[in-house]
């Protein structure tokens, strides 16, 4: 049982500003179904650079919904320049605090805000350009360094609570420890503008695979009475389950390799290997 403040409970049970602004000036999408939480923030900005409206849609737990809801309340009437300075801690404080294991929900709110502002101004999102450290949740070194600095984090557990990094397979623990040591000693630095080498994060990979399956593969299989479901993505291994007519079809293996794998390799990543979940 989480210890939620009355404010969190209120925003969870009676969320404010739910929905999407139709002609939004800025849209920020963060998170995914696979990760367990996701937020779509839409904002309206007037000629005076003031946020006149903000709406959200959130998939996630109580604190994710409450963080999103309180954020939209804070944003309404706020100058864009001020909104740019909002931190995850501001969101958490507006809720009267969050359990430390749930701080990543406030971080998600801030990231959605940054994405929506970037979408409005046309700027690049600096944090996404770092190098992915946590493959499970697609968290970059830049995001981790910033979380350590802004929230004075002191342990790997803190990093996981704030960014989710290290909360999956745990393989990146050593890297997180090193980042923590570097950042606290002040040797690690946020980039002075030059973007680093960009590679596909696990999150982007999953999203893209989902998209190709939904857009292309599923409709094709459905024509023959079949169906497909994405089960898991682990590195380059993509596990799917074939449903409907495909499940018992003698040529399902061919469908899998010659069609599904081929499509995903063409459109997502050349190195993908598709396997069926038996």
């Amino acid at each position, binding site marked *: 049982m989480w210890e939620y403040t009355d404010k969190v409970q209120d925003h969870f049970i009676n969320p404010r500003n739910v929905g999407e602004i139709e002609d939004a000036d800025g849209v920020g999408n963060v998170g995914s179904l696979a990760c*367990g939480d996701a937020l779509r923030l839409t904002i309206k900005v007037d000629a005076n650079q003031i946020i006149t409206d903000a709406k959200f849609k959130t998939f*996630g737990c109580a604190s994710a919904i409450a963080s999103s809801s309180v954020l939209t309340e804070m944003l309404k009437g706020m100058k864009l320049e001020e909104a740019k300075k909002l931190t995850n801690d501001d969101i958490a404080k507006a809720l009267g605090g969050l359990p430390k294991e749930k701080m990543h929900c406030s971080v998600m709110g801030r990231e959605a805000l940054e994405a929506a502002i970037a979408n409005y101004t046309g700027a690049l999102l600096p944090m996404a350009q770092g190098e992915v450290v946590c493959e499970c949740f697609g968290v970059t070194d830049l995001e981790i360094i910033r979380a350590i600095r802004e929230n004075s984090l002191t342990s790997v557990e803190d990093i996981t609570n704030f960014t989710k990094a290290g909360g999956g397979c745990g393989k990146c623990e050593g890297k997180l420890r090193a980042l923590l040591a570097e950042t606290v000693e002040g040797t690690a630095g946020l980039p002075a503008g030059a973007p680093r080498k960009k590679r596909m994060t696990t999150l982007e990979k999953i999203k893209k695979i989902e998209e190709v399956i939904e857009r292309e593969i599923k409709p094709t299989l459905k024509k023959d009475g079949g169906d497909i479901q994405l089960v898991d993505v682990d590195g380059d291994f993509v*596990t799917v389950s074939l449903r409907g007519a495909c499940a018992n079809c003698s040529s399902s293996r061919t469908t899998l390799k010659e069609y599904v794998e081929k499509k995903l390799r063409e459109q997502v990543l050349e190195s993908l290997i598709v396997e069926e979940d038996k």
Partner: protein
Amino acid sequence: MAVLPEQVIYMDNNATTRVAPEVLDAMMPYLTQFYGNPSSMHTFGGQIGQAINQARQEIASLLGAEPSEIVFTSCGTESDSTAILSALQTNPEKNHLVTTRVEHPAVKNLCDNLESFTGRKYHVTRLPVAADGVLDMQRFKESLTDDTAIVSVMWANNETGVLFPVEEMARIAKERGILFHTDAVQAVGKIPIRLKETAIDFLSLSGHKLHAPKGVGVLYVRKGTPYIPFMNGGHQEHGRRGGTENVASIIGLGRACVLAAEKMAEENTRVRALRDKLEQGLLSTIPKSLLNGHPSQRLPNTANISFEYVEGEAILLHMNQYNICASSGSACTSGSLEPSHVLRAMGVPFTAAHGSIRFSLSIYNTAQEVDFVLATLPGIIAKLRALSPFWEDQ
């Protein structure tokens, strides 16, 4: 603000159960007047040993076992650790364990730690399950080797209620000279068990899952099965488990086992019918909801249902507004960041794994309670879906 028992609709009986009033009555004298130590020489203490042995008899009777095969422990987890570590110690030349990918953390984490903390001295085969949570018996047979010390497979899964054919598996293991342990914490009292007629060497049970209090468990150890204790100490339990007996809870567990035997028919008729009504009602009124686990090869009290595109903790907290108690396999409720290992092993898609809710009933549930949940839940799911950025695309 406290929530009183008469206000709640308690459908979380796989987590823990209420202590039956009859059980508490049986325990009270041992929490008040009869405080003696059963190991004492005087009659005041010594007479308590007789009460413990009566409880032992009652428990053995529910399990179809001999009283001498019952060892009292503090919980299911202790029973699991005792059985598995005993098997490894009595088979020092063997380094292999067979288990499943869907075990309770009591077995899962013990096996994981045995592997990682012993420099890989031990290696573990974790049997996969199909999409409906059922084990592949062929894979099981193939997993057994001359190096296998013990097989540990749960009788019923705590999250889905899916039953495993442990009696058949124990026979197969026995033919190969391999010890067999089953974590039957969820199964005892819900399905008939006749250990005498099986080849099972060790069975774990936990008092608080069958209307006895928390803090008492049992390890069944088949007569003749080599055994080395986990808790060393005094001569209690004939040297098989040191430590002064948790007398009142042991007496309570004995009474709970008598009650369980009496109520087993009801569990499999009335409770099953309530569960089925709840399950079918939810699946038919809430779109994009699906059952996790085999429809029939399952405990009579458990229903695990996923509501796609919404998150479990959010569902539970809305249910909490109505004092409906259940649990979820979502990441947010586990305190970790990943959804239940059981649902992941079954290949439940991401869209559904985070939105799973487990309802587990008991003989104390009523038809009115089921109707109330059926009337309440569709609104909760609809409300959360209206918030979900993924739902509109459906």
